[in-house]
């Protein structure tokens, strides 16, 4: 039966994780994601899972390394400074090919910054973050409903590809409350065989979960396995949403909470007859580069809006490869782009002459 409740984004991610069969959660207090850790402390133990408030972010990420190595569905959550601390463990999880879900409710940086929303961890989330050649799948919800739906998807993708999946929320999405609808009878994603798990070597050869390969060719071999996996993820898991893109001559590109604000502006300008559309990446890695490349053959102006000083805009530029003009508007440090600021930037872009480009 479908049920609709009023929930915050943080609580929605917690509920989704439990309904996705989460077995083990470890987390450390940090604002603005504390509601999620508290939700887990309250709910998880009474619904068959294990909750630990760890002594540090490092311990949390390494606890989920261990629990995932045992074959369990695992999750940790934090906010930007805490996610920085987890990077060592995330790199090890990538190297050992462990499924894991990591929530980042982004706040402003650099350093301790403040507790207000930001999108300035895009580079860290999508380009690796820790040491070594690796990627996470990065999912960017834009509502409380999507915080729920994408967290569930994160568990499916983590198991499907033996990969860590980051749900990239922000302080605005995590804290705000909206109606959340889900099917109460919906079963968790089906369990996946984990023939590599550490369950005791009874009647079989031992398993080893590690990211260390002492012989030089073996690290390269492991990296090639990872690269093959990343190519598979790129070819199968790209997700995005388009609004008014069918006949748009100009597109706003935004993700997460900024896309929500931009959508209101785009709808208003459409009502006034402006041929503006919204392109919203849902997977930030793999980035919807191919779709943007296709769009750039007919859409000649893109405006990227972010709560950062220009991070995703680099991927948009790489995707359109000079076929379209890409402009940028961003605020970061707790400031949220307003509708009027975004409208001003759209109108500026619409009225700017298209530069003639040489071949």
């Amino acid at each position, binding site marked *: 039966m479908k049920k609709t409740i009023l929930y915050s984004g943080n609580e929605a991610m917690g509920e989704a994780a439990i309904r996705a069969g989460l077995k083990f959660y470890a987390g450390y207090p940090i604002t603005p994601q504390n509601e999620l850790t508290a939700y887990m402390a309250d709910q998880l133990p009474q619904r068959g899972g*294990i909750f630990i408030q760890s002594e540090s972010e490092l*311990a949390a990420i390494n606890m989920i390394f*261990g629990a995932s190595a045992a074959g369990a569905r695992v999750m940790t959550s934090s906010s930007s400074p805490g996610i920085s601390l987890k990077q060592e463990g995330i790199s090890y999880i990538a190297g050992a090919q462990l499924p894991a879900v990591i929530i980042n409710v982004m706040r402003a940086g650099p350093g301790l910054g403040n507790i207000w929303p930001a999108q300035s961890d895009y580079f860290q989330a999508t380009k690796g973050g820790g040491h070594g050649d690796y990627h996470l799948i990065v999912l960017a919800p834009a509502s409380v409903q999507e915080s729920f739906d994408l967290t569930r998807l994160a568990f499916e993708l983590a198991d499907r590809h033996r990969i860590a999946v980051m749900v990239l929320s922000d302080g605005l999405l995590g804290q705000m409350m909206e109606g959340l609808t889900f099917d109460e009878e919906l079963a968790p994603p089906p369990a996946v065989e984990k023939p590599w798990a550490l369950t005791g*070597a009874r009647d079989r050869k031992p*398993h*080893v*979960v590690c*990211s260390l390969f002492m012989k030089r060719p073996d690290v390269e071999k492991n990296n090639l396995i990872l690269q093959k996996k990343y190519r598979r993820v790129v070819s199968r898991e790209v997700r995005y949403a388009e609004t008014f893109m069918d006949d748009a001559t100009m597109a706003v590109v935004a993700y997460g909470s900024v896309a929500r604000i931009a959508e209101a502006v785009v709808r208003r300008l459409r009502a006034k007859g402006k041929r503006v559309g919204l392109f919203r990446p849902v997977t930030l890695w793999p980035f919807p580069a191919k779709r943007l490349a296709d769009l750039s053959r007919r859409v000649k102006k893109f405006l990227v809006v972010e709560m950062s000083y220009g991070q995703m805009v680099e991927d948009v530029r790489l995707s359109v490869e000079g076929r379209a003009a890409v402009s940028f508007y961003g605020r970061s440090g707790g400031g949220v782009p307003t509708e009027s600021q975004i409208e001003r930037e759209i109108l500026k872009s619409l009225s700017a002459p298209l530069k003639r480009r040489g071949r």
Partner: protein
Amino acid sequence: MGKKYSRPQALTDVVTHYCPGCGHGILHRLVAEIIDELGIRGSAIAVAPVGCAVVAYDYWDIDCAEAAHGRALAVATGLKRVQPDKIVFTYQGDGDLAAIGTAETIHAANRGENLTVIFVNNAVYGMTGGQMAPTTLLSQKTATTPRGRQAATEGYPLKISEMLALLNGVVSVERTAVSSPKEVLNTRRAIKDAFMNQMERKGFSIVEVLSMCPTYWDKSPVDAARWIAEEMVKYFPLGKIK
């Protein structure tokens, strides 16, 4: 007359990378013997450290995770909590357990995680070339204390086992050595006790083992063993701490 001495089943048939006179080989064998004796090869899961024992998984014929430096007890916590019927142990050196992993060590102990810890104290970082460890003795020369460790600048050797004994979550703390046949046998008994504590669900047990590093102590294997018996035990006395 039957065969009295052979390779334990839980020990793989390979040559280790350890230096001549190193204590790790003895300890690996003791752990394997105990796993055989307790019949837990099918349920034991080891967590290897970063340090000389980083590839312990090549030497034990059991499931094994290789943890990031210092994080073995966090990894072990995750492994054990989701499968409490398995026998999970960490095998860690002094740098791993008592320097970079101090927080993980103290908090896993304080939570009373039902784990077994084998803590190999050889007073030096071996893998990286003989730098000062938290347990390096005063005046001991290392790559990073070329004139000997000084209390005024480097502090005193860390007695982490004594610190852990203060915690309510810890059921057993013992310090042993592998510097003589007598001490090896006592270490074997202590490690077995620590595994049995876990099997009986008693809680967190740690055995600190004083172990030789002839290479970075710049001593012969015989002199290295003697140095434990004559010098190390003065600061790190052997026996049951808790």
